[in-house]
Structures are given as C-alpha cells and as structure tokens.
C-alpha cells in the first residue's frame, strides 16, 4: 500500500516542480499501477484537471483501446496524496471505483471534510485517509509558501508575507 502512495507523492513532487498544486494520484488494479497522474491545472488552464480526473481520462482511453466496458472501474483502488475535492469525489462516484485511499485531509475543498459527497451517492466506494499524510501535507505547505504564477489573486501574496 505504502509503495503506491510513495509513487503518488513522487507525482505530487513533479506537480510542485511544475508550479502546480502538488497532488499526485495512482490507480491500481491487482497490485499494479494502471494509470498515474498529477495536477495539471495551470498547464491546461482548466481548473478541473486534478490528478484524479486525469487518471480517469487515462482509464477511459485504456478501456476504449482494449474494448473494455466502463465497469472496469470497479476493480480500481485509488491512491491520492490529498483527500479528493468535492468535484473529484463525485467524479470517482460517477465512474464507480472500488476504493479511495488518501494522504492528508483537504480542509479547503474536501469531498468528505467540507461537504460529504457520500451522502448524495448510493453506491459509494470505501474511503480512508491518513496514509503518509505528513509527506502529503509537507508538499502542500511548500506550494502555499510560494505563489500560483497564473492566478491574479492578491491573496497569494498575502500568504507570502505571513
């Protein structure tokens, strides 16, 4: 289990280097990574391109190429460094993954912490957190010490001064 989260953290580190919010994610089937990605929001200028959504995209392409039905998602365990946001939590419900394991909680957008998405969907995946949470949090802290280069948001500068 930890090895998959270590890989997700590595991807989060890549995101940080690319000046993205450092979140990484791997999708695992039968103990093998079948998709991996990181946040690509600034790169794509699309604020929904979170690591989880990118992985879902990869799996859908994989299904298409292998002629698999989308119920293939039922085999997937998701390792993601930060608790999926409300959007990603709903998306992971939409595709119907088996399990989601995250690192640290997401106080700003969390699909459990801020608004419990599992109450709205009936066929929930199992959700657990706190796997290598300190490492995931450390990455985020590094990011929020700097600024988001694309957002014209003065709040970022405030954080710098703190």
């Amino acid at each position: 289990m930890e090895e998959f989260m270590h890989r997700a953290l590595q991807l989060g580190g890549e995101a940080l280097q690319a000046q993205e919010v450092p979140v990484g994610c791997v999708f695992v089937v039968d103990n093998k990574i079948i998709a991996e990605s990181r946040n690509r929001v600034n790169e794509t200028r699309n604020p929904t391109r979170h690591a989880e959504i990118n992985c879902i995209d990869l799996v859908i392409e994989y299904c298409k190429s292998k002629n698999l039905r989308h119920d293939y998602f039922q085999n997937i365990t998701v390792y993601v460094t930060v608790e999926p946001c409300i959007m990603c939590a709903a998306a992971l419900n939409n595709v119907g993954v088996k399990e989601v394991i995250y690192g640290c909680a997401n106080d700003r957008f969390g699909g459990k912490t801020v608004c419990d998405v599992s109450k709205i969907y009936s066929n929930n995946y199992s959700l657990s957190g706190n796997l290598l949470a300190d490492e995931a949090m450390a990455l985020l802290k590094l990011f929020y010490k700097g600024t988001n280069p694309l957002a014209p948001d003065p709040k970022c500068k405030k954080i710098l001064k703190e």
Partner: protein
Amino acid sequence: MALDSAEPEPKRMKTSNKIEEKLDEYLKNMKSATWNLTPIVEEDLYKPIPVVQASVGIIRDPKDISKTILTLNDKVPMKELQHLKRAQKKEIVICPLSYLNGAKIEEYLENNVKELKEVFEEFKVCDVPSRPPQVRKQFEESNKVWPCNFHPNKYNEKLVSGSFYNEQELKTHRQYMEMVFEVTKFYMKGLTATNIDSDKILRNLNTCVVVDPSIQSVVAVCFDNRLKHPVQHSAMLAIDNVAKTQNGGSWVADREKHETIDSTLRGIDEELCCHLKEKFPQVKFGAKKFKSKRDMSEEELQGNDIGPYLCTGYYIYLLNEPCVMCSMGLVHARAKRVFFCFNNSEFGALKSKVKLQTITALNHHFEAFTGFL
C-alpha cells in the same frame, strides 16, 4: 388502469413524438413566461427565524435599567444572541435558558452576577429569535417576538424581493436559455421517444452555454457526452472549452486543426456555431482575446490587462441543475452566475441535494438562478 378487452387499443401514435417537439413546447412556455427568475439562496435568508428560550428578569426600579444592561453585557455576554436588544421596557434578557444548566435563575445570578440579585422583582422564560434577522421581513417578524438589532442589506433584500432582474435582463437570460434548448435540439435531431421517455432522456444529459456578460458574447457551448465518457458532462466540457479560448484545454480531438482556429472561437464547434448564428442573428459569439503573462512579451502586454482568467465573470446557462461534480467544477472555474431550467432531484448540487454556492468554507461563491419554466 385495466382496459376492457373489447375496447380498441389506445392509439400508439399519440404517445410517440420527437424530443424536438417536446423541447419546442418548453421553449414556447419559456417565451411566454411573465415571472422573474428565482435566486437560490440559503434558507436562513427567507425562512422564519426559529426561537429559543431565554431567562428574562423584570426590573423593580426603572432607574436601574441601563446599569443592569451594562453589568449583564460585561458579566454575561451572550455570544449567540447578540442580535437581541437586551431590554424591552422593564424586561431584561439575562441569558439563554441553556446557560442555567437546570439551575434556578436566582442561583445563577447568585453565582455569576451577585450585584444584580436584588434588582429584579420577578423572573420568567421568554421565546426570543435564535438568529439575527437578515432581511426586513424577518426583522419585522422577529420584533414581534423580541426586539432585535438589524443591519439592512440591499443585496439580501433584492435576493428575496421576487424581482431580482428587470425586464431587459430577463429578456437576455431567457434568450441564452433558449439557446440551451436550441443546442439540445441540434444534437437530438430526429430522436423519437414516448413522452415519459423524452423527459427521462432530457434529465439524463445536460447542455451548457457560457456567456461573457461584459462583452455580451457567447464564449463556449457544449452538449453532453456522459454516455461515452462519464466525466464529460456538458459543464465539464464547457470549462475545458473556455480553457481552449485561453490557449489551454485538454480534451482536444485534433490538435493540428485546433491550432488553426481563431482562439476566441475555440469554445464553440464550428458547425454548431453556424447554426446558432442563423437562429440567433442578434447574438455575438467568441471570447475576449486572451492575454497572458506566460504567452506574451512585455511589449505585447503593454497597456493591456491580462485575462480572461478561467470563467471569472462568466454566466453559465444549463438545461438541468448541475450535478455535484459539475457544480464544484464551476466553483473551481470561478463562474459568476449559474442559471438552470430543470431541477436534478438525484444529484443536483445547487438546489436539490445541497447548495454548494452557500457553503461558506469554499473559497468562491457564484450565484444560482432558476425558474425559467
């Protein structure tokens, strides 16, 4: 209902119609609508304010009133009931009943504000409003229960007034919603279904039109693709299409062709755009020319503001109330207003299941409106 076998079968033809006809029916109704759109706000803004019980003392000598209030404010501040005026003639709120923890009010005074032990001639329990009134109507109702402080807020009053938009604005919003229906018709051409089915089909897809109100222009238009791709709900596609007008985007089928299209028009499929221009000759299409620090030299940027940034300032028009995923996507995208026609009772996140726009913990809040039909 059991039909007598001797009766002829009901005509099948009648129940079968085209989804386009159904959409035309809705369009007709929308065009003849005379009412305003409804802002979807938190319930606290319009529901009557619940009451809680408070311990109230009746002052023996009116000369002691102001001194007593000062002492109480100092010794028994009521964090949760600061909206109350502490006194109503000779009656003074001592504290919420919950502070007593089952003890008698006399004991409570003895333990907490000894100096006021003798100023009251009598005690009683009164209902008082539990929350501050946010709009005048609540203020007036609350005052009948117990006098309250009230800070009038023009915008809140407008939200509950039932006349948020003026006639001209309503015309504009209805026109963009008509476009949502027109786009749906465009993609559902020729599809036949029974009446019941057609409603079901229409609820399980969505159509999205994105408008930049600062230049009154359509920036992106998307129809649903969720059957082939469970994340490609129309709002998610539209957010990506907006990104395409800003030199970004990730769902690009043909990169090479994409690059040849004028970036301001990358949010709308070419063929669809032609169709819509014919149907809505008065409407402008295309995004503001995108300017970014990342893509332009200092000189190119001179005197120009950078932007647009994501969906900042944009209005989003949708056939159905967006689901949790799409609604949160629109929060991430910083949309300014979201309009929709039909409720999504299963997964709707602006009205039906939850109101994301009212969750204060989130960093961005758009306004949501419905009531087209």
